């Protein structure tokens, strides 16, 4: 199993405990004292043996600037999702199926695995694109309506708006 360049053991443990606890609270969606204590214990136990898989980030994610960018990213993503769906709707409904599919590639500047995954997922959910593979830094994207085969332009068209923000966060 590959090693990741994530933060130290203690940071990972505390962060995964915290995140798991928040997830537990969302599952139960109450603040009754018994549930909270059980949640703390359960999250602690699970974090003990899963913290080595923790991959996303360290404590600096809580700084206001990054939080702002996360917020920003959320809206950009939502907008892209909606336009993507309208796009799909247009293509599906129109009787002629206006498509010109192909697979393009481009390189990304992101370094961490987590950011790459977020970018790939975002690309999958945005208009006309589907990420097929990542090999090191290169993305291979299935594009329903290929506008350009040039990596630079494809990068600009598909990923730039997300990548800009992701670089700020990670």
């Amino acid at each position, binding site marked *: *199993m*590959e090693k990741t360049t994530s933060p130290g053991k203690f940071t990972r443990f505390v962060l*995964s405990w915290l*995140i*798991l606890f928040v*997830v*537990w609270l969302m*599952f*139960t969606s109450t603040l*009754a004292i*018994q*549930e909270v204590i*059980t949640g703390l214990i*359960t*999250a602690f136990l*699970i*974090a003990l043996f*899963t913290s080595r*898989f*923790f*991959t*996303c980030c360290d404590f600096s994610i809580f700084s206001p600037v990054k939080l702002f960018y996360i917020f920003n990213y959320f809206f950009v993503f939502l907008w892209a999702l909606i336009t993507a769906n309208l796009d799909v709707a247009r293509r599906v409904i129109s009787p002629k199926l206006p498509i010109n599919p192909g697979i393009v590639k481009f390189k990304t500047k992101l370094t961490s*695995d*987590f950011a*790459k*995954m977020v970018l*790939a*997922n975002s690309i999958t959910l945005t208009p006309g694109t589907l*990420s097929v*593979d*990542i090999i090191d830094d290169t993305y291979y994207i299935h594009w329903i309506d290929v506008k350009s085969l040039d990596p630079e332009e494809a990068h600009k068209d598909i990923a730039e708006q997300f990548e800009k923000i992701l670089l700020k966060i990670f």
Partner: protein
Amino acid sequence: MKMKKILVISLLAVFGVYLTEALFKLDFGRQFFQQGVKDFYLVTTPMKLQVANVVTAIVVNFRGFDTLGEVTVLFLATTAMGSILYKGRHQLGERAVLFSGSRIVTTGSRLLFPAIILLGAYVFIHGHLTPGGGFQGGVIIATGFLLMLMAYADYSVSHIVLSVVESLAGITFATIGLLGMLHGGSFLQDFLPNGSLNDLLSGGIIPIIYIAVGFKVGAELTGLIYTALNEKD
């Protein structure tokens, strides 16, 4: 061979028609019997046991013996599978390292794995309040491990740890039963305070048994999947 097919189909048709005709005499949505056991269960569970989920109460308390048997069946299925399949498995790296999933799948699995384990824990801890329980929680935990096995070809689960967890959980279940015998005179008898309805800590021994069952089923099914997955040609 055609004859066999026709024979089977006609036999099944006769059988099916007869069964259907008989079942039509049952009123769907109404119960034929006047005094079944279910009325007692439906009233006793919230009143005496303080358990919200009546199905859980039946599975663990009223018919807890069945559940013990059911756990045993799964245990035996795992043992049987290990005994039936060939030896010479469990060699690490047999599923080549080359076959690890893509970066997206591995990262996604790392992210989802703790959450899925937590979901399993949530399901079996809340077995007496919401739908679900030990088995479902155990299955979810096992599929969580399966996710990691899918993502990383060289991910491995320690057989010894699985076996220890499984044994301890099973022993806990049986011991709770025997403790009930010491306390109240009958096997699996509830010997803990019941709490109040819809609290997490209610229902006497039910949450404890479900936690044990959850651990046991999770370990068993993980072992089962791992055994099957590492079976080599």
